[in-house]
């Protein structure tokens, strides 16, 4: 005998329709649970994909060496800065590398007229990958010739522009960086704030060489962007960079690296992992609400069993077996769970689509998630329906018949 037959299900639906208001309230919790689960997983997935896309836009064929200067000291001797000597060593000794591009960062005062503003200097070259993502609002970026000639030119972010120029046009004007005069040749488009709260517009970009010669970079370069000759050489390049930098930093065997070597997939993976954890957390919270929905079904069915004790007694007396009574209540739980989960899946899918759009997240409603959540909701309903069903099946028919 099947535990829940089609006819049992039909009868269960009839019973539930006798009290439609209550049935709707019963499934509401489960519907919300399933809906929340689908929405949360979809949001998380959408956010994750957006983050990954962002990181991938930085270039997948680039290795990044990050200086530890100014960072947390792990004990032992302080980390050495990344210097031109390192860059030269890499360019001279490495056989796998096509290109080494340094980025220097330093906070300095910039003045114009009588106004002064402290901003973050970015010494770079047009080859620096990140720069390609920085859109210009006006003017242009310096070129390789400027880098080679150590031209005293710079591109300003919106914050120093506001602070120093107000409503005046900065293009072509000369600002003083430290003590070096520098002509403004471009303006960066406004970017707003980073997740950390840092002002992304508080920046001044100038050629690395200019910065190094006229202003100095006491802490060394912040990053080296390194491109291997081909993507297949990524692993070999990694190894070679590590070797050369260790040697150039004079690190003894057994001493830990005093720089970080990141490959793009590592960065992406880290971001991926972070957003996965976040998605898991959201899904976990939603799963709790799903469980609460299941408990709702259990409660209502327990009430229903208590109310229908007499009826259960009658059914038992005329020959319904405990198993048949169990299956009857399981069928009711199943019917409730199917309706609740179905409604929840529709709600969740709708919410995922409607919310992702204004948030600018990628659309990521996966049919597997919708189906999986709905099935999970049904399972939750049936599992929680089992307790009341078993209580009904275990009723003593003589006692049950006495209860009116």
């Amino acid at each position, binding site marked *: 005998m099947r535990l829940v037959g089609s*006819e049992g299900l039909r009868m269960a639906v009839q*019973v539930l329709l006798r009290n439609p208001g209550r049935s709707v309230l019963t499934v509401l919790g489960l519907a919300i649970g399933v809906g929340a689960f689908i929405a949360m997983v979809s949001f998380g997935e959408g956010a994750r994909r957006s983050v990954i896309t962002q990181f991938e836009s930085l270039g997948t064929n680039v290795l990044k060496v990050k200086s530890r200067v100014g960072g947390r000291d792990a004990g032992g001797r302080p980390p050495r800065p990344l210097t031109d000597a390192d860059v030269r060593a890499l360019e001279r000794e490495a056989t796998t590398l096509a290109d080494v591009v340094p980025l220097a960062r330093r906070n300095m005062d910039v003045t114009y007229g009588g106004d002064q503003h402290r901003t973050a200097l970015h010494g770079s070259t047009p080859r620096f990958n990140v720069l390609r993502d920085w859109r210009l609002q006006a003017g242009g970026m310096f070129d390789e010739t400027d880098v080679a000639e150590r031209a005293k030119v710079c591109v300003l972010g919106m914050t120093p522009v506001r602070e120093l120029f107000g409503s005046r046009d900065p293009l072509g004007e000369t600002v003083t960086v430290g003590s070096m005069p520098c002509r403004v040749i471009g303006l960066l488009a406004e970017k707003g704030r980073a997740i950390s709260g840092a002002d992304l517009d508080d920046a001044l970009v100038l050629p690395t060489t200019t910065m190094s010669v006229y202003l100095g970079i006491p802490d060394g370069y912040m990053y080296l962007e390194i491109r291997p000759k081909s993507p297949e050489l990524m692993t070999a390049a990694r190894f070679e960079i590590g070797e050369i930098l260790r040697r150039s930093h004079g690190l003894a065997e057994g001493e830990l690296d005093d720089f970080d070597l990141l490959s793009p997939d590592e960065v992406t993976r880290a971001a991926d992992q972070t957003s996965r954890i976040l998605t898991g957390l959201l899904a976990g919270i939603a799963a709790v609400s799903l469980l609460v929905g299941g408990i709702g079904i259990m409660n209502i069915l327990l009430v229903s069993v208590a109310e229908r004790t007499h009826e259960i007694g009658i*059914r038992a*007396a005329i*020959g319904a*077996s*405990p*198993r*048949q009574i169990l299956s009857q209540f399981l069928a009711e739980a199943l019917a409730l769970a199917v309706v609740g989960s179905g409604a929840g899946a529709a709600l969740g899918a709708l919410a995922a689509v409607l919310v992702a759009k204004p948030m600018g997240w990628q659309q990521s409603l996966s049919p597997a998630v919708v189906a999986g959540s709905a099935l999970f909701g049904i399972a939750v309903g049936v599992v929680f329906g089992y307790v009341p069903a078993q209580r009904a099946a275990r009723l003593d028919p*003589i006692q049950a018949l006495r209860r009116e």
Partner: protein
Amino acid sequence: MPPVVDIRALHKVYEEGPMRVEVLRGIDLEIAAHEVVALCGPSGSGKSTLLNILGCLDRPTSGVYSLGGRDVSTLDREEQAWVRLHYIGFVFQSFHLIPDATALENVALPMYYAGVARGEREERARAILGRVGLADRAEHRPNQLSGGQRQRVAIARACACKPRLLLADEPTGALDSRTGVQVLELLGELHREDGLTIVLVTHDMGVAAFAERQVHLQDGVVVDERRADASSG
């Protein structure tokens, strides 16, 4: 033909904490096929307990109960349910119909549990309702029926799976005397036409007189047995 019911040295003891109540204290009872027996006795005599055991709703503490030649005194709950479904029909004092179901659905219910297909079940339920004179009330719910009609639906339901033994617990207790007589006449008719074996539990001597044999219980033992022809003679 072997007896439908064969009970030997039946005891039923209820224990609740230190309390120990012996409700049945050694009952011997045989009921032949096609017999109509009345179990009589004052309340507390143990007749309801005996009826519950006869109906496989309860189990004896000791002793043997054979139903149709099969020992049913030690069955588990699933097996008891199977025996109730296929061997026994119940008629209760307060009808015990399912209030949300129509007369037809009530009568068809045991056949549902027996696995009879829907179409056949409804056809048979309609036929039985016809026999108890309620063909035109098939779609009525219990609260749309009179007491006598409800008891006739209950009798139809009890007969739905062609039981070997019909157990009627005060079947006229909730009815006025005229309706009560009609219900008894219906039971008599089923007995004569189908050869149904009937056990009636009653404290009404008028109802007991309807049976061929009266078994009197007191304090958990059979104190008296008489045949209707002997008492009326």
